[in-house]
């Protein structure tokens, strides 16, 4: 808990606040200022927009603990604001709302647009409002409403709202109630336990991947086909070539349970799940399928690895063709936009090689989380694994 002093709609507030509580929740839950709406809660939809020191900001990704001394204005605090009054009237006239969920954020942004860009036309207003989503698709009415107020202010001197004072309203808000700033810390009970992995079973059904990321790679390993084929039939060897991955249960050779830690910048996830191995010796090919869930973020990954082997030269070497297809869903895909840091693959190959060398010398290697998601990494490591395995052999 941190003791934080804020000014909210002109009133001084001191409260003990958990650092993890965001401003939107603090305003709604602790101060009962429910005009601020929470939509996406990750800074995308704009519904929770409030003024911090006079300038609009998303309250869902602002933390009161980090706002010591800040002046916060919510829609309640604009009850007597002249521009907000004009906007309320215009939203009524132009039918600028349907369900009303986005409206508080729209009004907050609209006031800023009118002050900062008086006389702004439709194009400028649409540009400025692009960060506020209306799911009733009522943009036409909203934009017309803002345009009519902005037109009335045409010729006025633009006001940079950052750092401006907003006159407190006379509106009697729930802020007259005592502040519920005494939430009890539950440190001891809250120890986070990751959700249990979904039970793996041999008859997991795999749906077709929808619009997966695909990549292929061809490489040669200096070993006879039979040896390479054998490695692909052993889940523990395939899994062992992924940094951060390990089997979580003994495998029967046809199905497996595994987990893999991945790290992308400040994001970290541990996927736990299961997979199957199918091989067709007649065509020297096979498919390894897997799917997993990151219990913390509820991100899901599904992947297919298709491999095809061919003997080379006099049979002392083997050509390997591998295709990876994967789809990532949930928060991790959203934040990383499905990106793959392809150039990291090379450096992760080195981590992998180190792990392998350690394993070969009998020293258990520290299993570091891989520093990226995806198939490029896997391909690079798979290639490195085979090259090193058979070079050493």
């Amino acid at each position: 808990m941190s003791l934080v002093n804020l000014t909210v709609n002109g009133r001084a507030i001191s409260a003990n606040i958990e650092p993890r509580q965001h401003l939107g929740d603090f305003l709604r839950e602790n101060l009962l200022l429910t005009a601020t709406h929470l939509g996406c809660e990750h800074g995308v939809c704009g519904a929770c927009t409030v003024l911090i020191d006079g300038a609009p900001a998303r309250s869902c990704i602002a933390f009161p603990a980090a706002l010591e001394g800040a002046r916060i204005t919510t829609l309640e605090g604009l009850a007597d604001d002249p521009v907000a009054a004009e906007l309320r009237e215009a939203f009524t006239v132009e039918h600028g709302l349907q369900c009303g969920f986005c409206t508080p954020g729209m009004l907050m942004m609209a006031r800023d647009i009118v002050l900062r860009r008086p006389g702004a036309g439709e194009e400028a207003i649409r540009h400025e409002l692009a960060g506020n989503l209306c799911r009733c698709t009522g943009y036409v009415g909203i934009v017309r409403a803002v345009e009519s107020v902005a037109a009335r202010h045409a010729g006025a001197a633009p006001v940079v709202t950052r750092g401006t004072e907003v006159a407190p309203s006379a509106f009697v808000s729930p802020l007259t109630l005592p502040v519920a700033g005494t939430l009890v810390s539950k440190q001891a009970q809250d120890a986070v336990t990751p959700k249990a992995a979904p039970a793996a079973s041999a008859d997991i059904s795999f749906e077709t991947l929808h619009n997966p990321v695909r990549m292929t790679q061809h490489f040669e390993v200096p070993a006879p086909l039979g040896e390479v084929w054998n490695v692909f039939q052993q889940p523990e060897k395939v899994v062992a070539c992924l940094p951060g991955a390990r089997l979580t249960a003994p495998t029967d050779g046809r199905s497996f349970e595994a987990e893999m830690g991945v790290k992308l910048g400040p994001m970290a996830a541990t996927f736990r799940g299961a997979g199957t191995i199918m091989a067709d010796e007649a065509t020297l090919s096979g498919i390894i399928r897997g799917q997993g869930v990151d219990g913390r973020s509820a991100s899901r990954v599904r992947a297919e690895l298709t491999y095809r082997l061919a003997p080379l030269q006099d049979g002392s070497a083997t050509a390997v063709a591998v295709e990876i297809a994967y789809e990532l869903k949930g928060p991790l895909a959203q934040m990383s936009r499905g990106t793959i840091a392809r150039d990291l693959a090379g450096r992760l190959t080195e981590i992998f090689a180190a792990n392998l060398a350690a394993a070969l010398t009998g020293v258990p290697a520290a299993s570091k989380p891989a520093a990226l998601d995806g198939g490029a990494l896997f391909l690079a490591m798979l290639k490195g694994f085979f090259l090193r395995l058979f070079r050493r052999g």
Partner: protein
Amino acid sequence: MKAARFDYHRPADLTAALTGLGAAGGKPLSGGQSLGPMLNLRLARPAALVDVGRLAELRRVEERADGVLYGAAITHAEIEDGAVPDPTGGILPAIASGIAYRAVRNRGTMGGSLAHADPAADWPTTLAALGAIIHLTALTGPRESRVPDLIRGAFDTTLEEGEIISGIFVPRLSPDARWGYRKSCRKVGEFAEAMAAVLIDPPRNIARLVIGATETRHLVLEGRDIEDSAVLDAALAGIGIAADPARARLFRAVVADALSAAQTSHVSA
């Protein structure tokens, strides 16, 4: 969509901040406009946040004859509004005004954007093209880096544990420098799907093309290479973009637009 528990520290000065970051699990917090969503989605679960966004050392701006040194915690909105000096004849305010949305620009910082190292963010591509020098600081001492050396991949930098970006030095452009910048977004304010920046500054002997939104490190072409389509194609192939014909076309179009903008648009430095 609630962040996991973390401790919050607001150190009084830079030295205290660097000491605090040395403690286990400490992450620097600047404007929090990228870290905030990751905290709420629980993709990032730092044990502690060390607030560097209000440190005086990171909030100062120093104008020099050869450019401007911005503190890392100068916000996009401050640059957009001209609240700080601009050595680029309007390039920096124009770029700032195109970042996300005003509500984000009011809090997001230039240094935070660089440290987050999103390949599709505006500052890394722009500052790489402008030849900015990034000032880094740690308890062991300061060092300097160029953007292409700082950002080695998506969300991946050469910042050491306990090291932060303290400032960004943007060199002053020549009066007849030319600039082109294009990005392709599905929606205003969204992260770009392709972006390119071109700086041609003959008196300083600079002709530079930087391509961003690559999903990996930035592509930097210099000199005659910037107009050579074979070199461009090879570079795109090198980072896997050529594999998708639609994406490769988008990147080529964005580069062509930025190059043609740089033929005509003089900066007013």
